[in-house]
């Protein structure tokens, strides 16, 4: 008998501060006004998406000592937007990226538990780590954390938050008006945590929320990051949206679960993916090419090269050949506050490879940047894109995708209207929400139920 069809999970990533966003398009709206977020969320809910995703940044990025001005700059506060979106949606999961370095467990646990109450069980937390002094300059803490300790702190942060979420069992609020007992137990919410990073005690003051704990996302790709996710996360926000890389990542991470006593279904793998839709495949290809040119101007191409070269390259012609000087191998000082910089772990090798590829293909700097990055994951007619998404999910390259449109806020509309119905026809995508909480959408066990089953076995 053939394997049953997997159900696809889809999510909507609000286009943020990077050059996938095409702000120069006449249809591009505000990335700050609430009306943009409301439109985006309502479209995602209309398409029965699992959730909406917000990224984070805690310091404006700089290049060459100046605030970066070529991409969208600025974003609203994550918790505040998600709580407001809970008022204009009913089912959509609400996932916020919240840093474990420049926050405290008590406060973050309160915020997520509050969001879960206020959304009736739709809160999720993408736990990210940071350590740099650059971001730290905006916080009381400063840049205090050695890089090698970031996962250690993140792990303990998440563990501590979990202890706070679990400090209420869920049956403490009696609210017995005639009898006069509000709280069953004066010690509700009591906790003590003593560890390497946190030494706290007291009583948590938010009662247990509908999901018990928010859904936990993790995004790290290193060996340590994958292990962290396998041990603690409900879902992974990855960047491997192709067949070969996706399958390798999927297999690797799912195989890590057993040692933590977990089943492969308990961790969903959801790569970020961009897309371009057209009436025909040829239309879509043409549009995709145009979008890439909008995303990478000559100035953007030079700045992008500086992420690798760690040098001021403003004197170079973006339509000319790549620099023949080598990257500065020292501490990266030219671009600050960018995750991309860390992707090029060996800048000298990257530069060598890029020069060879550019020479072989007669690419200019701008051509090189366009060809090596920002290629849309799904390009084609609605039928082509629906088939591609389904093929990747059925081939275990992913459990679904977190879609990143290039236009704010209407970039999902066509996808919702054309691709989603095709996936529904194939029987691989829900036509109605089956439950009310985000855990229901991801088919994750409620943590209380899981704990109960463990205790019973």
């Amino acid at each position, binding site marked *: 008998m053939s394997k049953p069809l997997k159900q696809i999970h889809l999510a909507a990533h609000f286009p943020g501060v990077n050059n996938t966003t095409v*702000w120069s398009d006449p249809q591009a709206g505000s990335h*700050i*006004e*609430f009306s943009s977020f*409301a439109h985006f969320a309502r479209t995602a809910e209309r398409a029965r998406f699992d959730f909406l995703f917000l990224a984070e*940044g*805690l*310091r*404006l990025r700089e290049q060459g000592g*100046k*605030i*970066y*001005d*070529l*991409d*969208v*700059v*600025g*974003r*609203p*506060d994550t*918790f*505040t*937007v998600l*709580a*407001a979106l*809970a*008022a204009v949606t009913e089912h959509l999961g609400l996932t916020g990226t919240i840093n474990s370095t*420049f*926050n*405290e467990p008590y*406060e973050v646990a*309160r*915020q997520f538990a*509050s*969001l879960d*109450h*206020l*959304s*009736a069980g739709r809160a999720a937390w993408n736990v990210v780590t940071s350590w740099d002094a650059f971001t730290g*300059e*905006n916080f*009381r803490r400063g840049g205090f954390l050695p890089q090698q300790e970031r996962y250690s702190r993140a792990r303990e942060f998440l563990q501590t938050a979990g202890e706070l979420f679990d400090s209420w069992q869920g049956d403490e*609020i009696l*609210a017995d*008006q005639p009898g*006069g007992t*509000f709280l*069953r*137990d004066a010690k*509700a*919410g009591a906790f003590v945590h003593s560890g390497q990073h946190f*030494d706290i*005690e*007291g*009583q948590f*003051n*938010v*009662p247990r929320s509908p999901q018990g704990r928010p859904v936990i996302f993790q995004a790290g790709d290193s060996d340590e990051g994958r292990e962290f996710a396998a041990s603690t996360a409900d879902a992974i926000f990855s960047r491997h949206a192709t067949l070969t890389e996706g399958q390798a990542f999927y297999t690797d991470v799912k195989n890590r679960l057993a040692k933590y006593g977990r089943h492969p279904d308990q961790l969903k793998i959801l790569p970020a993916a961009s897309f371009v839709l057209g009436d025909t495949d040829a239309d879509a290809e043409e549009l995709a090419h145009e979008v890439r040119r909008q995303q990478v101007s000559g*100035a953007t191409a030079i700045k992008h090269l500086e992420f690798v070269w760690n040098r001021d390259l403003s004197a170079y012609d973006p339509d000319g050949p790549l620099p023949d000087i080598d990257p500065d191998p020292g501490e990266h000082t030219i671009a600050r506050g960018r995750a991309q910089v860390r992707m090029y772990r060996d800048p000298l090798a990257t530069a060598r490879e890029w020069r060879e590829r550019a020479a072989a293909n007669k690419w200019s700097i701008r051509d090189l940047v366009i060809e090596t990055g920002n290629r849309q994951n799904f390009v084609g007619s609605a039928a082509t894109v629906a088939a591609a998404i389904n093929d990747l999910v059925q081939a275990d390259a992913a459990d679904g995708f977190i879609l990143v449109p290039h236009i704010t806020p209407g970039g999902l509309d066509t996808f919702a209207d054309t691709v989603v119905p095709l996936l529904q026809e194939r029987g691989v995508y829900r036509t109605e929400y089956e439950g009310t909480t985000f855990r229901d959408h991801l088919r994750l066990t409620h943590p209380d139920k899981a704990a109960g089953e463990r205790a019973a076995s």
Partner: protein
Amino acid sequence: MSLSPSPLHLAVALDGAGWHPAAWREPVARPGELFTARYWADLVAEAERGLLDFVTIEDGLGLQSSHPVEPDGCTDQVRGRLDAVLIAARVAPLTRHIGIVPTVVATHTEPFHLSKAIATLDYVSTGRAGLRVQISARQNEAAHFGRRTLPHIDPLNDPHAWESVAVLFDEAADYVEVVRRLWDSWEDDAEIRDTATGRFIDRDKLHYVDFESPHFSVKGPSITPRPPQGQPVVTALAHETVPYRLVARAADVGYVTPHDGAQARAIVGEIRAEQSAAGRAGELLHVFGDVVVFLDDTEAAARARRDRLDALAGYEYTSDARIFAGTPVQLADLVEEWVAAGLSGFRLRPAVVGHDLPAITRKLVPELQRRGVFRTVYEADTLRGLLGLPRPANRYTTTTTPAFASVSAGSAAAGA
């Protein structure tokens, strides 16, 4: 027609089922719903029906306690609460006119996070956000964070308790200063979307705030652009000279707790003196009286209700603020008397939210309208507009933009 803001301002302080510890036991209370969005949405909608200027939402970083500095272990009163900023954001899209002012604790939180949260609340509410800044001197709350230890303070027996917490108020003043600088760290027209040069922003219109103090330092700029009101409304509760100074230095609205007209006059005088000393003599700074209210059609009914709740609680309820038990007409008299003493508004604390909030919106407000001292329609779409507070000029703007620098009170402020 141009409307001038109401001469009298009314806010209501929302906290659980109400301010009386037995409020949750009244049949109109919904104690099982205190942790739902619908409960809060209903309360704020009721306040908006009464054309109130704003609601405040109480908060704290520990369980509520009847003891001033320690947990009390009570199980017969409401315990537990949701984050006030998140409640505010959750109800904001469901309302159109009323200001929404959550409480934030300066002692244990990050001004950078808070600044963007309130700026975002201002976007979400299209210009109706404020904050109420509070300190925490509780040792048990400090232990929830584990980053600082606070001395034990006994406000009941230590005549110098206020001096002991003065450092926390100084820190709160710095906190507000950082928050306001971060709101200003983007000029209003920083986003240019200049396709000719490929620049999304004019980075010369973004500013590092470079704040340094003994308490903390913050670089900036904010990650969130300047909010619709420029600076949302900053408020604080104050009972003594030290916190009066915080109000005078840092706030747009101060809440005070006189027990009669003479005290109201004295407190306003003290705050005005501190305001001059802080160099803000020319600025509009509202002083609101906080009053706990039991409102019924007869004074006897209000007093009987208070007695009944005291009996349920097992002790006589006392408060920092005056406790008023009487009719809406009597409360309107008190309002007029205290306005004559120099107050510009009131923050009423409903003893039982389910009873006294509708009594405020449906009985007190019509009475004040009959007397011609309270608005009959919302005169502005922003909280600053309602309060007659100008939209602040941006301290970092180098080229003057008159349209923003001197927006008059009222509807003009809504255009931001």
